[in-house]
């Protein structure tokens, strides 16, 4: 056995994506679709697929697989598939339609995404994403998604997140909602057609692996508490990201990593867990009661100016009384060419530095001003209202302040996780038959995701990629029937039951939320916007101690046979604890700064992120080797044939 490195992990054999065909990048997807085996339409209803999660990726996959005639069983923890957190995405969805004739193309979208991801994503996957992006818009329009239109009746586009072409399609500030409702309606159509069996208020608690293949899941009915076994020929996880392990994030209350973590424990490798995205424009924390953070669309930075008082003594003052010369518009000062529109990670980190220097404003001193006074003076209040009215209303609703009169306060918050289960070009994990789609996989965004790309990836995976690649696997099925008495099934069910019994019988002193909050504080402090060797080491120790205490000291009241949200959360937080540790180990081992991962030790003289392409141009795929054993790192080398690796600069 190889040595334990840094006392934390071992290194295993390299891993490789074997599914992407070689050759010209623009022919790879076509080739793969052609080479993937077909399933005779008459055989499809004999093949069953479990899909966990009904957001953009899962909902779209369910609908498409159902339309194709497969027998689909869908699961979500919410009371309806329409509630998945994809719904909260505000800004828009990118697509290489080039409707504006401004030089956009599939290749440019591909290039921007690879560059934006700081050269830590796989070229083949990203190219395919850009390639199918245009079909997504066609599909959604046909479904009745009410995208914004011009007076001509044609679709409107805007530029988003500092990109120089206008390729973002949007439906006011509710693009995610409209796209999800489109997918949801397509899904409900299949429910009515009988091809999809929908199980809402069901949470996946274990993966069933039989003879090396993913064959089913164990779920808990969140109303009756019943532990159920569901078997199929393949399992798709589309369960979203794990940003909720920070406790305070822009994720929904129920977002969790249990499905992916359970799969990881059963053999699926976890890719790049330390790549998390911190969004710069969120409403700051207002007190200890805070349960989540609310994002304000990035588009606010188009017209708003970010500043802090030059003198920390001014931070308690009414911002309107601070004269111009006493304000520091720090982004405009440090990044004269991009100004307030620098990428998310840079804007976030800059805000942190200002607050660390004691200039932060608002409760707790964690906030900076986003000021629209100049925009209102220049365009008039009416124009500003047209552009941002709904966001201003939302801000006022939450904070009680009127942003037309006084500057908004914003602060970064965890928003998205680029990391996720490792998958090959077919979106198949290292467990045969287990596919992973959307934010739950690690594949397309590298170390940083561009704005308006999450919706694109979710729908690309769900509508167009997965249904084409999964058939190559299903063509070998139906696989032998698994009896309920099979050892793998019995073992999975018992594991679930034991965990539930443990939580209910521990009768400790602390609530699940109090542990979750503490875990979040550790991560935000040491594995947030800026990470250091010492901090991460400390975080690993603290997380381990917290986890040990958790299993002994958590208090979950009530029983299993009822709606019991504490019990639901107890399982999720247990998995968060383990994932958090892996995240810190990954962050510790990656001694470079790239994208959303900023290591203080690796920066340029000006304090910018410094990549180390010699040592770290790989994706880290982690293998689970036991709850207290060091995880094993498998490196997937990243080769750039079509895009040249460059250091980002926004000065």
């Amino acid at each position, binding site marked *: 056995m190889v040595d334990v490195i840094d006392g934390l992990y071992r290194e295993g054999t390299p891993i490789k994506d074997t599914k992407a065909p070689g050759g010209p990048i623009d022919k790879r997807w076509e080739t793969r679709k052609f080479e993937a085996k077909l399933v005779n339409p008459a055989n499809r209803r004999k093949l069953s697929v479990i899909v966990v999660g009904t957001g953009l990726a899962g909902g*779209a996959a369910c609908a498409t697989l159902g339309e194709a005639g497969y027998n689909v069983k869908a699961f979500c923890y919410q009371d*309806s598939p329409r509630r998945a957190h994809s719904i909260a995405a505000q800004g828009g969805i990118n697509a290489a339609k080039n409707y504006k004739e401004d030089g956009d193309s599939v290749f440019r979208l591909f290039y921007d995404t690879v560059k934006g991801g700081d050269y830590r994503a796989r070229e083949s996957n990203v190219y395919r994403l850009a390639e199918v992006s245009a079909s997504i818009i*066609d599909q959604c329009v046909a479904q009745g998604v009410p995208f914004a239109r011009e007076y001509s009746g044609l679709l409107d586009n805007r530029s988003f997140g500092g990109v120089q072409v206008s390729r973002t399609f949007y439906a006011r500030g509710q693009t995610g909602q409209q796209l999800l409702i489109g997918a949801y309606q397509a899904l409900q159509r299949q429910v009515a057609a009988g091809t999809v069996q929908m199980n809402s208020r069901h949470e996946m608690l274990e993966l069933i692996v039989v003879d090396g293949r993913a064959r089913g899941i164990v779920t808990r009915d969140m109303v009756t508490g019943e532990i159920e076994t569901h078997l199929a020929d393949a399992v798709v996880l589309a369960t979203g990201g794990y940003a909720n392990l920070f406790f305070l994030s822009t994720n929904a*209350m129920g977002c969790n990593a249990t499905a992916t973590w359970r799969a990881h424990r059963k053999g699926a490798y976890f890719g790049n867990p330390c790549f998390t995205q911190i969004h710069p424009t969120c409403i700051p924390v207002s007190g200890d009661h805070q349960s989540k953070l609310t994002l304000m669309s990035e588009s606010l930075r188009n017209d708003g100016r970010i500043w802090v008082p030059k003198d920390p003594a001014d931070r308690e003052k009414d911002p309107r009384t601070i004269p111009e010369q006493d304000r520091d518009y720090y982004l405009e000062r440090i990044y004269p060419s991009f100004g307030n529109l620098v990428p998310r990670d840079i804007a976030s980190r800059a805000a942190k530095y200002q607050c660390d220097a004691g200039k932060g404003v608002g409760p707790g001193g964690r906030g900076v001003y986003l000021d629209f006074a100049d925009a209102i003076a220049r365009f008039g209040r009416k124009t500003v209202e047209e552009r941002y009215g709904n966001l201003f209303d939302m801000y006022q609703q939450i904070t009680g302040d009127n942003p037309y009169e006084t500057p908004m306060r914003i602060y970064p918050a965890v928003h998205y996780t680029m990391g996720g289960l490792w998958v090959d070009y077919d979106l198949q994990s290292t467990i045969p038959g287990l596919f992973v789609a959307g934010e739950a996989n690690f594949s397309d965004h590298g170390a940083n995701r561009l704005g308006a790309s999450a919706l694109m990836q979710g729908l690309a995976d769900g509508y167009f990629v997965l249904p084409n690649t999964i058939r190559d696997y299903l063509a070998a099925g139906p696989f032998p029937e698994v009896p309920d008495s099979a050892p793998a099934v019995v073992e999975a069910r018992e594991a679930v039951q034991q965990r539930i019994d443990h939580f209910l019988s521990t009768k400790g002193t602390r609530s699940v939320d*109090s542990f979750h909050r503490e875990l979040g504080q550790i991560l935000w402090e040491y594995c947030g916007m800026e990470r250091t060797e010492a901090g991460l080491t400390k975080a690993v120790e603290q997380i381990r101690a917290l986890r040990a205490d958790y299993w002994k000291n958590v208090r979950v*009241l009530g029983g299993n046979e009822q709606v019991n949200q504490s019990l639901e959360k107890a399982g999720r937080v247990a998995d968060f604890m383990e994932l958090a540790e892996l995240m810190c180990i990954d962050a510790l081992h990656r001694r470079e700064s790239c994208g959303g991962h900023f290591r203080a030790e690796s920066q340029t003289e000006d304090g910018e992120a410094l990549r180390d392409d010699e040592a770290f141009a790989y994706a880290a795929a982690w293998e689970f080797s036991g709850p207290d054993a060091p995880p094993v790192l498998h490196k997937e080398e990243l080769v750039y044939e079509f895009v040249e690796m460059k250091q980002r600069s926004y000065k």
Partner: protein
Amino acid sequence: MKINLKIWRQAGPNATGKLVTYRLDDVSPDMSFLEMLDVLNEQLIAKGEEPVEFDSDCREGICGMCGLVINGEPHGPRVTTTCQLHMRSFKDCDTITIEPLRADPFPVLRDLVVDRSPLDRIIAAGGFISVSTGAAPEAHATPVPKKNADRAFDTAACIGCGACVAACPNAAAMLFIGAKVTHLGELPQGQPERAARIVKMLNQHDAEGFGGCTNVGACADACPKSIPFDVISQLNKDLRTSLVRGL
């Protein structure tokens, strides 16, 4: 702030429920309504009492998962979702009564958690455009006048929270259906199935046991997304067309 709460507690779908009184002493006006309940739950857990179960997910007013009837009004005194309601909307020493969304098609599962799956079944009955993946024409093939696109959006903003049903004295889900048939009916893509869609959705609505609309308008007053009441008239108009066509 000090707040007195009367909360509906019900152990399970078939159990009898009752209002139970609680008192909270340290409520910050900046708390959201649901965060206030989180604080209550932490205190209950510390005392060894089972916490109050209530639904919420995104907590930014878009997923539609939350929905409590606060002092007789779904989502409380403001035109917003429960999660976006803040305690500054209440006064010190207020007594707040919290009940679940009440309608027989929405049975209580526990405390304030109800089952809203009838709304999913109404959508499954016809609230969609039948276009399979890959069958879509180029997006610019059919222009949509901005006016229609905007109205489609306004009505598509429905979050399916069920507040309209809870507010309606008849427990009808007409605003929900009206919003969907108007959304799809405003778009050229929605025309082929327009007449049949509405009949199927209404049949499902009645089969689920919702009441009938008597044009009271409480639904639109309670709607956190301000779906306008005229979608119900639009629905009636479309229904007339469908009836004339003998569907």
